[in-house]
């Protein structure tokens, strides 16, 4: 199976008001195969969206990006090269669909703009738009096209955004928290829609969310991110069933449910560190119940079955 996206040692630094912030994103290695989904899961500020922004070549000018991003047949691409790929071969959907659409244009005008930019023949645009809306389960395509964003519900708008992202039949779809702003039942429908569209159309997907269960539901592989580092990655089922990194274990143990006795959730002490604090060694060490002396040094990447774990104590 061919690789669609490969990141090797991608790092990002920022310079804010003359102060250099070292590596809010550090040593990111990941790979997505054709038609497969990689899920990135992590808490606020761990660098999930920053990773997507770096892939898209959309970092602000204050950022310095290192490492290699390879995409499809293009090989290594710079953020400048990305301009031609972005929006056609790689497209993106976001958390807040209401903010992603321009409130003063109809859905039709906005989808049409995308179709025109993608060089779809004039006489095929109408049928493409209708087909796209229907493929995302919007039955009443004429009404949806004529609507302004505020006239549609959040779930419908999110479907429109998915339709828009698929107009150019991309190789890779980046979905950044696509269900976070939706009610749970609507979010579940959107997840099911994304899964079946992927099966039908074969695009690869980078799915980003803080919601472990949403990520697990759509991803073939999972990367758990903490403080700008991937701490554990592997096939979804294996990571969920036998998490190896103490942070992954803590995160899964923290999910409340009726089956867990009250007051006994795994509560990782402390807080997610701010991106502004520079960390030496393992970033999780400060909160880790298994901490040892060597944790003050950069942890090795340990392979356990199909999982890669960045931890001194992995496998012990």
């Amino acid at each position, binding site marked *: 199976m061919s690789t669609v996206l490969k990141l090797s040692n991608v790092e990002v630094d920022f310079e804010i008001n003359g102060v250099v912030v070292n590596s809010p994103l550090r040593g990111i290695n990941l790979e997505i195969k054709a038609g497969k989904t990689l899920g990135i899961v992590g808490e606020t500020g761990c660098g999930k969206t920053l990773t997507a922004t770096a892939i898209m070549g959309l970092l602000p000018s204050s950022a310095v990006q290192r490492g290699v991003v390879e995409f499809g047949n293009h090989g290594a691409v710079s953020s400048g090269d990305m301009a031609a790929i972005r929006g056609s071969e790689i497209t993106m959907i976001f958390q807040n669909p209401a903010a992603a659409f321009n409130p003063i244009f109809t859905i039709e005008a906005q989808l049409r703009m995308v179709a025109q930019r993608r060089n779809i023949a004039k006489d095929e645009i109408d049928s493409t738009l209708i087909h796209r809306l229907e493929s995302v*389960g919007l039955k*009443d395509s004429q009404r949806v096209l004529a609507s302004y964003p505020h006239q549609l519900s959040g779930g419908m708008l999110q479907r429109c955004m998915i339709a828009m992202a698929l107009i150019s039949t991309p190789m890779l779809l980046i979905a950044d928290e696509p269900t976070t702003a939706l009610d749970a039942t609507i979010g579940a429908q959107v997840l099911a829609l994304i899964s079946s569209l992927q099966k039908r159309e074969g695009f690869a997907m980078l799915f980003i969310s803080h919601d472990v269960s949403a990520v697990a*539901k759509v991803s073939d592989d999972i990367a758990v991110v903490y403080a700008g580092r991937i701490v554990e990655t592997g096939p979804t089922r294996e990571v969920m069933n036998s998490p190896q990194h103490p942070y992954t274990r803590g995160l899964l143990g923290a999910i*409340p449910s009726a089956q867990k006795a009250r007051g006994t959730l795994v509560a*990782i002490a402390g807080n997610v560190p701010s991106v502004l604090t520079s960390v030496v060694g393992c970033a999780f060490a400060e909160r880790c119940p298994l901490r040892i002396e060597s944790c003050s040094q950069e942890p090795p990447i340990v392979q356990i079955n199909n999982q890669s774990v960045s931890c001194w104590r992995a496998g012990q």
Partner: protein
Amino acid sequence: MSEIVMQISNVSKVFPSRDSKKGFTAVDSISIDLHKGEVLGVVGESGSGKSTLARCAFGITAPTSGSVTILGQDMAGKSRRATRSLRSNLGFVFQDPAGSINPRMSVQRAIAEPLLLAGQSSDEIDKRVNFLMDRVGLASSQLSRKSHELSGGQCQRVAIARALATNPKIVLLDEPTSSLDLSVQAQILNLLEELRRDFDLTYFLISHNLDVVSHLSDRVAVMRDGVFVEVGKTSDVVNAPAHPFTRELIRAYSGVEKLESDMPADFDLDRWQDGPLNRWAFQNVSQFLPVATIGGSKSPVNLPQSIDPTIDFVKVEVEGKTYSVPELLEDIDTDAIVVLHKGSIVYEKYFNAMTPTSLHLLQSVSKSILGALYAILAERGVVDISKPIAHYLPELVSSVYEHATIAQALDMTVAIDFSEDYLDPNSEMARLDRAAGWRSNSTGRDLALRGFLKTLRANGEHGKVYQYCSANTDVLAWLISEVTGIQYQDLVSQEIWQPMGAAIDASVTLDSEGLSVGNGGISSTARDLALFGQLILDGGRAQGVQIIPQHWVDETFAGASTDVISADYLQALHPGGSYKNKWWITASSSREIFGVGIYGQYVWVDPTTQCVIAKFSSLPIPVDSLHSRKHMALFRAICSANIPT
């Protein structure tokens, strides 16, 4: 059970609304008691009314009607001053911790505020604040901080400390962890449980997050559109949800396993109706075709069960071969069967990944539902079925439907140039499938149903000869939504599916213009289809209401007049049978009627034995007379097994 600390009786809250004179009812006559030391969790989606309910219960907003009693005292009609001491028994924790703390106040001041209002001395206050800080896990070094210097979790700890300052008995937790990261949420949930135990608190917890609610609560109330659709012990609600919305919510939250879209790798839009692809496709139409929802009832009928284990041993004889019921069910590729006797489930089996809540394509049984819908609307005078179809759809002038009447389309006596050959890719039936989106279409024509229907031509005099033609149903689905201005799926929902008490939303596939595929596009559960059969058996009545006119049901049972029963293929399958109002009527003495769809879909109604059978299959080929005979033999054997009772 322990003492009641809060009693909510018939509380309603109506907000004025621009759209309606009656206003918007956010909370609709809710009654519930809170017992000392319990956690009551209210779960619901945005706009369900849960926060409004809590605001009414805790005296923040006055309810429009109903009463709230706290520790035995009524809150209604009293001034703020009069209820001050009563309100000191209440504590509040809200979603946005930073927003609920005055940014100019220190942590010390924020926690002390309610104590100052209560008039305590500064010595007492300092002692109390230090005690609370310790209990919520904050260091005293943080007392001088302001909210922007704290993390979200720390802010929420301050908010909890403040809520507990006056030693309240009942604490409102309104989305207490919704803006926190998962690992911090776990800290706060553990803390809340610890405090509840130590201080004997009662919690009124509100959240959209079922995981949070079910983890922390003794009882769960599921709220939707201002009412509790389900209330019960947490374990009962989570493990045996009764209401469809609760089930949907649980599905949305369940599991950390990858959703497998189990679409077969060789799925093909031109072959999905045939076996073996239809074994998957008939249960998963919404995964490859656009569908609209046919909403079920908010108060679904719970079919009583009295399973008859002897049915498995009933012998069925078909063409010299004897089968047991399970053998025959397997032989005809059954996906589901539900048998009702006098309205109770006596037999129910599911195969091939089918469940009581999964939907299955009805194929042409959909037509029988349309027949009933027309009966209802014609009775009300919405349409006149003696009128030509083009009377209502002028764009069909010059097509076959210029002169053919609605009644003729309902009885399949339209003389139409149409081949109903399911296997010929050039037949009109195949063109209809392309127009409906049920086949791939590279012909450049028949892009949608309306355009296709305009092209159909007459080939004789209408009303004389029976001719089964699926397009006649699609034109009627189009007509009725045009006349009423209501989408077909919504008509089926409001006129039949809701009033009869369907438990699960059904669906109908849509063509590329969003028109419902009336001829065969409905998917429903087997139970709800059985419920529809029961409605017919009961003369059109359900839940004490006449839904379908009784005279229409009687006419349907009476069948078509004998002069239209021609010697076509119908007679080979159903000797002596006829077709009326989109139902088939057998010629046997027991006068069964049934709806049938290709590949083995049936609803069978037998007035003699008071039995209804809903059955789904995924047979490899669309129509076959041996299959039909097997079905009839099976149904009659099962029905007659019920005669003794």
